[in-house]
């Protein structure tokens, strides 16, 4: 174990009866890191978080927090605190009592507790809400109280279980930035569980993408988005176009791929995120890496003729679905709507292009 690892999970497994929910997870989360567990519902991410918090007991494997093994340590003894999806604000207590709840056992004087509560409420922008009863709080305010109540315990690790999923879009975006700012200011390790890929990309230092009880890929937001290891990860994090190819050879100088449409393609070694054997592979290109070539003089490394199947107009950009020759799957192309740029209609013929560097090789 490295010295700076705050949470170390090794070969963790959990069954609920016959059902395997977590199927062997290894994870190192650094001190002060904002780490996200991202995956569809039922992938085991919440169960993993609850095992770190101490609410579930693993069937096998181990969890270490700040160098101490957590086996046999109850939730109330762990240096972690949690922000629940439902916020779990105590309905019979007011804001101040909720925030101070965990300090009862700390042995602090009433004055010291009041000082800490004041500071916390200021931190989460709820100054003057001390006596507000919890049923009179809005969703966003409950969220802040839950955050203050957890942070006042000065945890080594803050666990967040889909904390923003119940908020409306505007408030959610605001809270995403605020959580990020809080985490940077306090330097506490945050572990966030979310199914929202955008949220994970915006907030995290690193992301673990989980499917079916296993981690598919761990990396920085850019690594996950730009260099997904397989089609599953690529499609979960946004949209990616897939083209067929055959991997011919791999060397330190580069990759050689054969394509029916484009002949031989040569790519840099880092364009293959996970090592693959020679054989059938997938070439991936993100929609915003492809462009519609408007003028006859526009050129790209690879070009295809196609026909617009549908247009989604988002205001700031247009999202085209395009049928191309030699591919059963339609291609997605995303174009920013700048001054004077034409927005195509269904049925229009277009020419697409993309660069060599925008491609990744994956399973």
């Amino acid at each position, binding site marked *: 174990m490295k010295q700076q690892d705050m949470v170390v999970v090794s070969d963790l497994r959990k069954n609920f009866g016959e059902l395997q929910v977590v199927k062997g997870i290894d994870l190192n989360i650094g001190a002060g890191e904002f780490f996200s567990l991202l995956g569809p519902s039922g992938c085991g991410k919440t169960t993993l978080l609850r095992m770190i*918090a*101490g*609410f579930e007991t693993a069937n096998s494997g181990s969890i270490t927090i700040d160098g101490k093994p957590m086996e046999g340590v109850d*939730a109330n003894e762990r240096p972690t605190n949690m922000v629940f999806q439902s916020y779990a604000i105590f*309905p019979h207590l007011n804001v101040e009592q909720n925030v101070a*709840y965990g300090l*009862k056992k700390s042995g602090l004087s009433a004055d010291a507790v009041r000082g800490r509560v004041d500071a916390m409420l200021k931190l989460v922008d709820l100054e003057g809400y001390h006596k507000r009863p919890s049923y009179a709080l809005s969703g966003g305010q409950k969220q802040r109280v839950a955050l203050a109540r957890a942070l006042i315990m000065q945890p080594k690790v803050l666990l967040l279980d889909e904390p923003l999923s119940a908020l409306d879009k505007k408030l959610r975006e605001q809270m995403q930035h605020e959580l990020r700012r809080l985490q940077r200011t306090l330097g506490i390790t945050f572990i966030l569980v979310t199914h929202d890929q955008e949220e994970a990309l915006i907030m995290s230092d690193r992301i673990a993408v989980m499917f079916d009880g296993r981690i598919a890929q761990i990396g920085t937001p850019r690594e996950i988005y730009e260099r997904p290891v397989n089609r599953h990860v690529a499609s979960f994090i946004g949209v990616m176009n897939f083209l067929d190819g055959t991997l011919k050879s791999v060397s330190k100088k580069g990759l050689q791929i054969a394509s029916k449409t484009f002949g031989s393609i040569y790519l840099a070694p880092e364009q293959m995120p996970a090592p693959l054997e020679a054989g059938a592979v997938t070439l991936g290109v993100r929609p915003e890496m492809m462009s519609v070539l408007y003028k006859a003089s526009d050129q790209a490394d690879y070009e295809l003729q196609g026909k617009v199947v549908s247009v989604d107009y988002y205001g700031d950009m247009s999202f085209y679905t395009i049928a191309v020759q030699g591919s059963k799957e339609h291609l997605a192309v995303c174009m920013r709507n700048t001054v004077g740029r034409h927005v195509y209609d269904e049925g229009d013929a277009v020419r697409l292009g993309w660069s060599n560097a925008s491609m990744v090789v994956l399973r």
Partner: protein
Amino acid sequence: MKHSSPIALSVFVVIYLVFLYAPIFLLPIFAFNDSAVIAFPLSGFTLHWFKELWGEDVLFRAATNSLIIAVSTAVLSTCFGVLTARAMARHQFIGKKPIFGLIMAPLFLPEIIIGVSMLIVLLQLGLALSLWTVIIGHTLIATPFSVSILATAFNNMDRSLEEASLDLGETRIGTFRRVILPLVAPGLISSLLIGFIISLDEFVIAFFLTGTDPTLPVYIWSLLRFPSKLPIVMALGFLLLVLSLILLSLFEAARRRSERLTGG
């Protein structure tokens, strides 16, 4: 089929309510009537019957017996109710549904069957009839009511509230005291009140299971044989009616508070 007019329906409701409540409203009238005969016309206002009530030693013993039994029943059925409701809300175990069914069964059993069969069992076991035997019988019929009230309180509670408390460093016992208890407190109060009321006016089981110490309803029943005592019974009935109304109001207040807390 012809639809009844709204007026006919209203008349029906009024007649229904009058028949239902007229006897109950007659009770206080005769409790204050200055005559030993329960009949109209009224002879004049008096508090005499309440004074006589005060002098009835046997009646006071019966009332004390009833109070002891009612309080014990309320506490016992609420304790069993808490244990059952908590187990049903939070745990999975073999035979959960049949066990729950058996606990709720006295709700649907005729009291006379319960009374007779308990009497036979107690006598076979060689146990003497006492206040305790009545308490056992009453607890049996009051527990299903406590369970249904408390099950609502426990089921409505968000499980993450308990986890949040543990997460914030509180122990399981501390969590029960600081989170669970305050949140189910209105349910507890409701359960105590309903257990108390059920026991207080229960006659059939008490009739079978009392030994030498009668409960209030059993004593009132025995008084009915002496017509001269009837106005005293009316006075006693008036006091019980007032007590019931107070308890009912408390019950309703507790229920509303519970709704506010658990309903968000």
